[in-house]
């Protein structure tokens, strides 16, 4: 009987797939996708022009244009940011008083796990891919990515990944959310003991994570191939911009780190479902920590290098001068890339590993602090005596530098074994890495979103709202995470839904900070959506007045050409007047250049 049921299901699934394939084949005339079929325009980038792009939803489902894929990644990342952010708001509200009030402790643990994974894998990596997909081909003057279709596949692996990771939260019978924390330490994550982590929800989460890892790896291969082989002739290694350098390094890190995560996840799935003995059943639970952190520490640099690139790229444009010590920044990026693979056990100082090995990991962790500090000095020196324009992107860059200093310095303290033995698994660690992931990485993301807003929307955002967003984020970040550093000094352990009454005040301060952050992000969403739809059109190829200081760069040059040649970009409703060659569209609104 069982077999018959399964057979029926299989047949049903087969019929369904055939139906989908038939529908896809009919809905579009795929033969029209030959590049440059009709008057593709003078510029390489327009390989897939308006005629070839279908309109509406189909365009977004079928696109292989790097700019469209960049926008998809961006949308995806921001949605994940909202999901992960709302999860943590619930947690912070729960933590406003010591006991268990709003949600159950197990639900708290579920949110904690999902928040971490969502922010790192569904927001962090994709939002960076948004910038790199949109910008790298423009910056190095390539026609598109080296493998446009792989690029599209890499993105489309992400939505199913998210659904699997969040599966436990959906009303599916017998499936509960994972409560393993983002580090998925064994034996808890192997489903042993009296807990409920043998549930299939954990397996789904692991599979989802695996998908996002495959996606990141495909993207990384694509970027390495693109940057090595698709550069225009003038873009020599000496002329490669700093953002592309950081993406190249990041891709190298992904290439070595993510497949390892994938293997470790498979081993864990085997331990859970097939009775193998890698980590449990007689295996070694510490092996998981080694494998996880051999991926995990490079992962934090995978997340921070491109933001460093964005800041190194944007900050000089508003300092009225070029980046101080450009090559220092390039070489130190590469140094971070290599050394990040030699520090993983600084997350394991308290596990009882051999003290000699601890000492070595401490040494490399201290050495890696140097290239990070060098960059900080480069940014400060760039602003020193410069003509600083405090636009919204610039404010975010300065906020990045300031928060990165606190996050980095607390990191160096944690890297020294005696201090870590005291502070490990306290809120101090939470404070440390949130200064980096929220205070630096998200800030650089916002700097980029504002700086290139005219580039990808053709419009300008509202600058007052932009500044309100910045100040609320800056104050909120520091209130929340400084309170956490103090909590850590006080000995408050991390990952608990309840706590002793003596920690109440600082926890309430942290919750207040989270509410301030939430207010800021609501303003951001409003500003972003409204300005995208109705903001004043930017009809000037140099909205930030970069030419004035000789800081004009390739992507704005591309934008300028696009404005001047204004072939309607497929998909949107055709605007007739935009087709006029050369001149500006009739309804040219004065550019709001936000330069004050």
């Amino acid at each position, binding site marked *: 009987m069982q077999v018959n049921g399964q057979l029926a299901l299989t047949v049903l699934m087969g019929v369904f797939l055939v139906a989908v394939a038939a529908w896809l084949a009919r809905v579009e005339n795929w033969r029209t996708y030959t590049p440059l079929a009709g008057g593709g325009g003078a510029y390489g980038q327009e390989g897939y022009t308006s005629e070839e792009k279908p309109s509406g939803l189909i365009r977004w489902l079928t696109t292989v244009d790097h700019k469209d894929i960049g926008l998809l990644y961006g949308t995806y990342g921001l949605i994940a940011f909202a999901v992960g952010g709302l999860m943590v708001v619930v947690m912070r509200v729960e933590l406003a008083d010591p006991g268990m009030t709003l949600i159950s402790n197990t639900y708290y643990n579920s949110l904690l796990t999902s928040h971490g994974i969502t922010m790192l894998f569904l927001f962090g990596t994709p939002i960076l891919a948004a910038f790199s997909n949109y910008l790298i081909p423009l*910056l*190095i*003057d390539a026609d598109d990515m080296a493998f446009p279709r792989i690029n599209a596949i890499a993105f489309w692996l992400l939505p199913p990944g998210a659904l699997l990771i969040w599966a436990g939260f959906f009303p599916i019978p017998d499936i509960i959310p994972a409560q393993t924390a983002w580090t998925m330490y064994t034996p808890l994550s192997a489903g042993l003991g009296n807990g409920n982590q043998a549930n299939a929800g954990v397996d789904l989460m692991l599979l989802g994570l695996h998908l996002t890892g495959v996606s990141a790896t495909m993207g990384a291969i694509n970027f390495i191939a693109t940057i090595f082989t698709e550069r*225009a002739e*003038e*873009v*020599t*290694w*000496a*002329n490669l*911009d*700093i953002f592309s350098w950081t993406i190249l390094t990041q891709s190298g890190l992904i290439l070595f780190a993510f497949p390892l995560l994938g293997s470790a996840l498979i081993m864990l799935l085997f331990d859970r479902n097939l009775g193998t003995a890698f980590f449990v059943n007689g295996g070694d639970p510490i092996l998981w920590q080694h494998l996880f952190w051999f991926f995990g520490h490079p992962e934090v640099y995978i997340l921070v290098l491109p933001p460093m690139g964005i800041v190194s*790229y944007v900050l*000089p444009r508003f300092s*009225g*001068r*070029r*980046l101080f010590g*450009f*090559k*220092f920044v*390039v*070489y*130190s990026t*590469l*140094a971070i*890339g*290599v*050394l990040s*693979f*030699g520090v993983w056990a600084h997350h394991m100082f308290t596990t009882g590993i*051999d*003290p*000699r*090995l601890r*000492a*070595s*990991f401490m*040494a*490399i962790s*201290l*050495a*890696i602090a*140097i*290239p990070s500090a060098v960059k900080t000095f480069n940014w400060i020196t760039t602003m020193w*005596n*410069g003509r600083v324009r405090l636009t919204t992107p610039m404010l975010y860059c300065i906020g990045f530098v300031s928060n990165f200093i606190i996050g980095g310095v607390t990191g160096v303290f944690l890297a020294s074994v005696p201090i870590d033995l005291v502070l490990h698994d306290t809120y101090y660690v939470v404070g440390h890495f949130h200064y980096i992931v929220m205070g630096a990485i998200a800030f650089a993301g916002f700097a980029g979103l504002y700086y290139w807003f005219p580039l990808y929307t053709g419009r300008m955002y509202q600058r007052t709202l932009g500044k309100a967003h910045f100040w609320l984020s800056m104050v909120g970040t520091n209130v929340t995470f400084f309170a956490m550093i103090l909590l850590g000094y006080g000995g408050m352990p991390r990952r608990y839904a309840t706590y002793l009454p003596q920690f109440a005040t600082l926890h309430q301060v942290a919750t207040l900070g989270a509410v301030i952050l939430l207010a800021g992000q609501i303003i951001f969403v409003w500003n972003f959506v409204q300005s995208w739809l109705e903001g004043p059109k930017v009809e000037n190829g*140099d909205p930030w*007045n970069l*030419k*004035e*200081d*000789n*800081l*004009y*760069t*390739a*992507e704005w*040059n591309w934008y300028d050409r696009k404005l001047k040649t204004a072939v309607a970009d497929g998909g949107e409703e055709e605007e007739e007047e935009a087709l006029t060659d050369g001149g500006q569209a009739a309804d040219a609104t004065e550019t709001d250049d936000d*330069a004050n």
Partner: protein
Amino acid sequence: MANEIFDRETLLDLTVNMIPLFIIAFFMVAFAVFPLFGRGDLLAMAVQYGLLLVPFVALAVLTYLSGKAIAGDEKRSTVFLQGQATVDEPTELHEYESQAEAAAVDDDSPAELESSDGETTQNDDETTRN
């Protein structure tokens, strides 16, 4: 041939990676001179030094290769201001630098190109500063 590429300038640029290399070397010597946890266990010692040696060698090799690629391209072809290689009227780096130096000699303002400084700045008409 190596010395043609690794001239003084390039070596100066690479100092930024020499410092971490030096720190790692320092710890290797320190652990050798003060073996706090004994010399007994050979395997542990081997892993301890391996963990320092592998990143050291990897960093040295990557620094050498990237230095060769970047400095080599500097010698072989024109270097433009960052991100300007493919814009319509790019500025060459040495041009920019010599002008910046000239400007610095003229007055003590920071060594940067003033916007009115001649051919390299394209659109003087757009100087709407605030």
